């Protein structure tokens, strides 16, 4: 028998299909981190959920915040009220944060927070909790998403203009470098870009150009000494999507790995290969998960998970999976458990983790990867020529590219060129038993929890030291104005029990607010069916009959950032002969009403995916009534509208309701035309 240490012997033969550790002993890989994106109702309810998930074998936390927290409003703000606790946990003060992590040792946890415009604030709160508990802050480990570029392009929870936003990101890197060495200050996201329609090449190019933008900003600021700069590069991590075309997606991951290695070496001169590693977490694609035959989504999720686990070289560090009922509502605990089990089976039952990269040497994979790399390099060069990522956001170039890709995608689904099983093929099926339970397979937020959150906020405000609050806010404002790093002042705000709204308002005062381009101008569908022609004919007929072209205001009320549906409807309406007003996301009901009134719209189409459709629709209809146009401008509503709410919505006055099942755009437009024609028949001009 020979052992690896025997002198004078030929080294033992290594089998190409085995993995070996540093000492040459056969080994297997450790699994990636299993995450479940979770949070809702209140800090207390979310804490209970986290503890349950950890007990069930989940190995990291992924916190979903509600929209007010993400957009810098306290729960008691009028814009916030309809949204408190709906799609994530509301955090108003450090006491909410204490509650959220109760019984969870921070220094041992790996916590990922999906937080962007207010990322500095949430990190300050997290650090504040650790300090007040006496835990070692240097040991904090995790990620603040903190990628503002993709917020402008796809996700919608931006607050400040690009320059100020990039400064906030840079300051967090600068702060974390010494104070929280294991913290990922930001996470460059391509996940959301794919959810907004990006092709693999666009995902690669936009995300890498984004990372370049962040690193260039930090380098130009000069606060990090040049010799430490590679450490900053080494801390850049990514959050990527994995779609249903899983082989191409796997190649995309390999392309990411290779391009990042290239960029960090050539552009930033990073020598240490470890600091050039493309470290990434994944959430698999949700855009392709369907309302129809929702059980099919389980298979889609499995296949998408393969795309980011099969190739060892491009395997994710952390994975979170959506659930089978993604297009219906937030997942229930059981739905999340089912998805977590998929990961556990993949990692522990299969032999996946026993092999080196199984695609090395594949001519096919290499060629496909090279093609993606080439396309991405071309696009990155184009963005650079425009002046870099910030300029390409501000000019609207990137957003219009995404809207275009999304328009192409929905056009292909409409024409049948892109097959979606259960949606445009094999649509007849047996009823799904998953939907027949008592709750209909749907999660409902407990509205009573909102009261608890508001009470907790009021209590903190009543008991804190007002002088300390004022001083902390003044110091924050002063840092913001003078260019000092805002991290320490934010931590002091946290400790002083400043609220989320107060922190954000202070910075709003200094930096102002920003609305990015909508990207819909000049776009069209790629469908020219007879049915489209028929809607156009009806539009012309309407012009002849009324003297004006049918005019629709597409409105996104509230804090909801899901823009795809509204964009698609706006583009489709123009394509079918409507004049369209679409002013982007996050408008107040009052603003939408004013647009519709001033434009003498024939119909208002609201798009709401945040779960606040009842409140917001009511506000719009009441606003119309107050302006005297209550009977004159019909309101229709689309988005994630559970069946149970349809009746209530109609009772409020909604004339038509659309859900993801209404993917056939000619049909949607024809139904809108019905409403418009009926109204024109009913009233005078």
């Amino acid at each position: 028998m020979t052992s690896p240490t025997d002198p004078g012997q030929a080294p033992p033969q290594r089998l190409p299909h085995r993995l070996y550790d540093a000492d040459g002993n056969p080994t297997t890989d450790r699994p990636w981190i299993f995450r479940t994106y979770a949070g809702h109702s209140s800090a207390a309810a979310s804490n209970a959920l986290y503890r349950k998930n950890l007990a069930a074998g989940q190995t990291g936390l992924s916190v979903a915040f509600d929209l007010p927290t993400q957009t810098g409003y306290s729960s008691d703000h009028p814009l916030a009220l309809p949204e408190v606790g709906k799609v994530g946990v509301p955090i108003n003060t450090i006491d909410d944060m204490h509650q959220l992590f109760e019984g969870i040792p921070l220094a041992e946890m790996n916590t990922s927070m999906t937080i962007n415009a207010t990322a500095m604030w949430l990190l300050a709160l997290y650090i504040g909790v650790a300090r007040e508990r006496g835990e070692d802050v240097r040991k904090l480990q995790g990620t603040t998403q903190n990628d503002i570029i993709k917020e402008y392009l796809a996700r919608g929870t931006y607050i400040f203009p690009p320059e100020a936003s990039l400064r906030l990101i840079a300051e967090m890197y600068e702060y974390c470098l010494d104070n929280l060495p294991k913290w990922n200050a930001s996470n460059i996201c391509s996940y959301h870009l794919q959810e907004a329609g990006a092709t693999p090449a666009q995902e690669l190019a936009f995300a890498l150009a984004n990372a370049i933008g962040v690193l260039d900003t930090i380098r130009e600021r000069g606060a990090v000494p040049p010799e430490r700069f590679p450490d900053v590069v080494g801390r850049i991590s990514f959050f990527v999507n994995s779609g249903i075309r899983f082989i191409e997606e796997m190649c995309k991951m390999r392309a990411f790995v290779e391009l990042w290695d290239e960029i960090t070496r050539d552009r930033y001169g990073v020598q240490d290969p470890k600091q050039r590693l493309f470290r990434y977490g994944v959430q698999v694609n949700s855009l392709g998960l369907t309302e129809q035959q929702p059980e099919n989504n389980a298979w889609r999720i499995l296949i998408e998970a393969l795309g980011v686990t099969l190739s060892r070289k491009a395997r994710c560090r952390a994975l979170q999976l959506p659930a089978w009922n993604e297009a219906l509502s937030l997942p229930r605990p059981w739905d999340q458990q089912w998805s977590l089990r998929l990961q556990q089976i993949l990692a522990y039952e299969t032999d996946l983790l026993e092999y080196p990269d199984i695609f090395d040497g594949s001519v096919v994979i290499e060629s496909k990867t090279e093609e993606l790399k080439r396309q991405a390099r071309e696009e990155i060069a184009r963005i650079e020529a425009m002046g870099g990522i910030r300029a390409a956001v501000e000019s609207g170039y990137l957003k219009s590219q995404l809207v275009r890709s999304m328009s192409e995608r929905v056009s292909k689904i409409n024409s049948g060129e892109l097959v979606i099983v259960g949606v445009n093929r094999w649509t007849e099926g047996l009823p799904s038993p998953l939907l027949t339970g008592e709750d209909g397979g749907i999660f409902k937020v407990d509205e009573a929890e909102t009261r608890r959150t508001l009470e907790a906020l009021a209590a903190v405000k009543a008991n804190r030291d007002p002088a300390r609050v004022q001083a902390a806010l003044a110091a924050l404002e002063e840092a913001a104005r003078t260019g000092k790093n805002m991290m320490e002042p934010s931590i002091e705000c946290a400790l002083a029990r400043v609220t989320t709204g107060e922190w954000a308002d202070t910075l709003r005062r200094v930096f102002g607010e920003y609305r990015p381009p909508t990207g819909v101008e000049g776009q069209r569908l790629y469908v020219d069916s007879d049915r489209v022609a028929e809607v156009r004919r009806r539009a012309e007929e309407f012009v002849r009959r009324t003297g004006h072209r049918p005019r629709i205001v597409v409105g996104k009320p509230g804090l909801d950032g899901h823009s795809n549906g509204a964009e698609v409807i706006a583009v489709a309406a123009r394509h079918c002969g409507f004049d369209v007003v679409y002013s982007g996301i996050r408008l107040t009901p009052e603003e939408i009403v004013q647009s519709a009134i001033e434009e003498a719209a024939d119909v208002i189409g609201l798009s709401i995916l945040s779960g606040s459709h009842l409140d917001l629709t009511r506000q719009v209809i009441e606003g119309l009534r107050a302006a005297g146009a209550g009977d004159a401008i019909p309101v229709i509503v689309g988005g994630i509208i559970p069946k149970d709410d349809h009746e209530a919505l109609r009772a409020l006055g909604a004339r038509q309701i659309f859900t993801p099942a209404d993917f056939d755009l000619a049909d949607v437009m024809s139904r809108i035309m019905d409403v418009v024609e009926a109204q024109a028949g009913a009233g005078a001009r």
Partner: protein
Amino acid sequence: MSELDQLVEGAIALDKWPLARLVRLFEDTRPGAVAEKAAAIAALEAHGAAPRAMVAGFTGTPGSGKSTLVGQLAARLAAREAAAAVAVLAIDPSSHRSGGSILGDRTRVHFPVGERRLFFRSQPSDRELGGMGRATYPVVRLLERLFDYVFVETVGIGQSEVEIERLADRVYLVLQPLGGDQVQFMKAGIMEVPHAFILNKCDVGAAARRSYHALRASIDFARPGEAAPPPIFRTSAISGEGLDDVLDDLAAHRSVRDAAGRQAR
């Protein structure tokens, strides 16, 4: 009271909903609507709503910031002149295929909700060539009886300059700073119409300064020997820089016009 009378009274009070519906009547370019429009004009006359507005046209290169600028100018004007009411009419291009349009200018303008002295209306170009629609002229004829200022934003650049000249008391051509190697500003035809030039986005720095000089030279070349060369205003719709200068220019020409008595246009 007839429905038309109600609309007219509401519109004169700048109540948005009747006003918006009256605009819709003036957008109706069918021969059948002529009588109703005449009746509306008569009702306006009867209420003493004679044409009074200073009409300013804003034309210029796509994306130069016309909508943002016009929105900022209108809001600033309403703040400066406590009694002034300002209407903005913004024209967007219609699709030649479908006839539909995205009325995108509105996206750039955020007037306070419920402020009667500020009114924004979009209008599709309606497959017309040039930068205005068939309904632009009639709608302006209505708005000038109800507001003190009417700002018209045309679609991009082209034949609109000549049309807008017929419609507006003063025409501004809005341009943005050029990149490094573009020297020539543009063809002579377009440079001849405007009363004044606005070089917007001056917050972008060096390119703006270079462009100012290039523009000055282009104007001198296109309009040789003019007694008073047209002014060039340097603005930023983002920082607010230079906006008051444009408003001063507008006010100055308003007084000149009012002193001279309104001309028939």
